[in-house]
């Protein structure tokens, strides 16, 4: 018997589990797989239909506190959007971003550095689009090699893990400096890298690169896996486990037992059997259509988790009293196309957990 059973291991589910755990609740987290966090940039965007409120600010502050405690601080403020560059060179507006990221300046000089091995990040392509987005910016490019033999197509994550090691950083820095000198490139105000500035040792990577290169460095997220997303996922998961959250992984919720408008148990399925899990409160963070909590039908959205009737927008016709909905599980009335976005995930998780105390 748990105090809280969370369904979903995305950003919403992990935050709900951690915050419920902070209140001393006994928490179980049931999920059939990881959430969309791993395919995201790791930046917290705002896609909500309703404008931000005081609650948004409170939740965002709470998130920033948590991330500072987990040694992965986030910058940015709920009231203001900033423009960051992506791996295609286009700009994207976001609210919160990790310390490995610096917003793009309006003018001045930047240098885009690619890795030969990472096909998804092409400096020339980044330059073309970035110059269109920021006409007053001077954009230089160069490409260096990670100097690794690989038997598979390398990703940004592979590059990030390589840069965790000092010898690989040294090789990369040496090539950058040599090329800049040879091509007589002017000193930029910002270096733009793929989203791969280390995983465990991101602080060292950041520190070493900016000192050695004489200017701040930033990560431009593109094709997943993006290092900031992986760092965020791994640190949230670790925090939840250390706090005692019981993970029921590779486990699908396939219905519920409801009595007197209260969920008494969830029906869960694992490889060997179908059984039940019991909680006092249930937090549904199943990600809507994208996360698997809803399916699209000709009649509109249908819920796959509790097996209860919903309206066409995915909202439960009668929501059981001990069920809290977070993220896209709230349906498409509240979120554009049912896409949650980091800020709404943070806010709805925070609101739900707050209501546990009442």
């Amino acid at each position, binding site marked *: *018997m748990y105090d809280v059973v969370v369904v979903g291991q995305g950003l919403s589910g992990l935050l709900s589990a951690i915050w419920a755990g902070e209140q001393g609740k006994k928490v*179980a987290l049931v999920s*059939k*797989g*990881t*959430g*969309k966090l*791993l*395919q995201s940039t790791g930046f917290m965007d705002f896609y909500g239909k309703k404008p931000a409120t005081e609650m948004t600010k409170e939740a965002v502050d709470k998130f920033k506190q948590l991330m500072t405690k987990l040694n992965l601080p986030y910058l940015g403020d709920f009231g203001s959007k900033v423009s960051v560059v992506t791996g295609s060179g286009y700009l994207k507006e976001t609210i919160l971003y990790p310390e490995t990221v610096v917003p793009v300046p309006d003018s001045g000089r930047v240098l885009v550095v690619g890795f030969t091995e990472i096909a998804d990040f092409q400096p020339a392509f980044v330059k073309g689009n970035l110059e269109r987005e920021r006409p007053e910016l001077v954009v230089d490019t160069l490409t260096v090699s990670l100097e*690794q*033999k*690989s*038997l*598979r197509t*390398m*990703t940004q*994550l*592979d590059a990030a*893990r390589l840069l965790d090691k000092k010898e690989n950083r040294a090789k990369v820095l040496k090539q950058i400096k040599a090329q800049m000198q040879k091509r007589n490139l002017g000193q930029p105000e910002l270096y733009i890298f793929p989203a791969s500035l280390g995983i*465990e040792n991101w602080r060292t990577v950041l520190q070493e690169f900016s000192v050695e290169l004489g200017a701040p460095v930033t990560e431009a997220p593109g094709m*997943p*896996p993006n290092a900031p997303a*992986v760092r965020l*996922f791994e640190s949230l*998961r*670790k925090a939840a*486990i*250390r706090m*005692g959250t*019981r*993970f*029921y*992984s*590779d*486990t*699908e919720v396939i219905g519920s037992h409801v009595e007197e408008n209260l969920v008494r148990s969830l029906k*869960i399925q*694992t*490889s*060997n*059997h179908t059984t039940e899990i019991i909680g006092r409160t249930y937090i549904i963070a199943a990600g809507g259509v994208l*996360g*698997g909590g809803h399916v699209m039908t000709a009649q509109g959205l249908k819920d796959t988790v509790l097996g209860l009737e919903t309206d066409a927008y995915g909202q439960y016709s009668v929501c059981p009293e001990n069920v809290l909905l977070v993220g896209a599980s709230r349906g498409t009335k509240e979120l554009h196309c049912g896409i949650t976005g980091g800020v709404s995930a943070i806010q709805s998780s925070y609101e739900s957990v707050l209501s546990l105390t009442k």
Partner: protein
Amino acid sequence: MHNTLYPKPSFDQCIKCNACVIDCPVSNVSLDFGGPKHLGPELKRLIENNEYIDDSRIDLCTLCGNCDLSCPENVQVSTLLAFSKEAHAEIAGTKFRDFVLANAETVGKLASVFAPITNLALKMKPVRKIMEGVMGLDSERLFPSYRFKNFNRIYKKKTANTKRKVAYYAGCYATYNAPEIAEAFVKVMEYNGIEVAKPDQKCCGIPMFANGQMKQGKKNAEYNINSFLEYTRQGYDVVVTCTSCTLALKKEYIMYLQSEGAHELARHVYDADEYLRMLHAEGELNTNFAEMNVKAGYYAPCHMKSQGIGNPAMDILSLIPGYEITDVAAGCCGQCGTYGFKKEKQDISLSIGKSMAEAVEEVNADYTVTECGMCKNALDQLTSKKTIHPMIVLAEAYEKAEKRS
């Protein structure tokens, strides 16, 4: 040419999101491995209705199953990988060493007969060097020791006569290397008024599947299924103390055999702590534990996480007064059954183990609790802490309480 008849879970749902790659312990430390996505669903998509492509990179997969846990689309990645391993072993052949490692049970039987000699030899540097040279076994890796008084010699009970009846699947490790785990389990059950029968059983097959010896593994699976179904049909519950064996009985047999029998058996299988937790939920657990002032760390084996059972070892141990236990939140140990004994995999195996060791030291508990004998092998070698099976702790807590009263 090859058996490309994969079980139902198909590659169709794979959207190439890379979640499995992010969570793959081997991909994370080596660029030589193709990765679960490429060698699982993608390879399968490529060869469906086409000529088989053999990819030797599959050899680096440990079958830890983390890919299945991370996949948001419910693709049974590890099953696809296991079949790639089978096909590769058939095409490329099997090293004598891998054949020996796959047959852990035969090795256990022989080694325990000559236990004092084997153990001594396994600890001697010159012998280990020869094993490395001749067999490709890593001379730096410590091997678990063997017991002459193995569990088969000690325990022969074939039936149980209590209300709840347990059919115990002991597995090779608790039979040949650490019979004290099996004995502790029987004791814990006794304290709960439950008799334990030990049906005829063979190695669960996990080391065979991992070494591409699918045919042999399936044979063992059939044997175990038939042997244990005779018990479950008489009302016995099947309880297991090794998390890899448990996963074989709960999941691998279903995935690889796709048989009615595998499904029927799986429904009756419990991890030992999961079983105790169920007794507790039904108000049947004897909770007369002595107080133990311990701050323990828990290391979750990958094959425990794969079962979707939360964390029953911690749930049960937390019932002991004064017993504090924290999950160290570590990933794979890198030993991965027989994988860590192989010389050419030494770098990968030890790099994977490094972050596990860091997590254990970070929590800095009195000792580490874990169910898996092979994880214990890695923990013993890579951390400064002692490693204990939860059944040993529980048996001690019951015994102390009994002496006290």
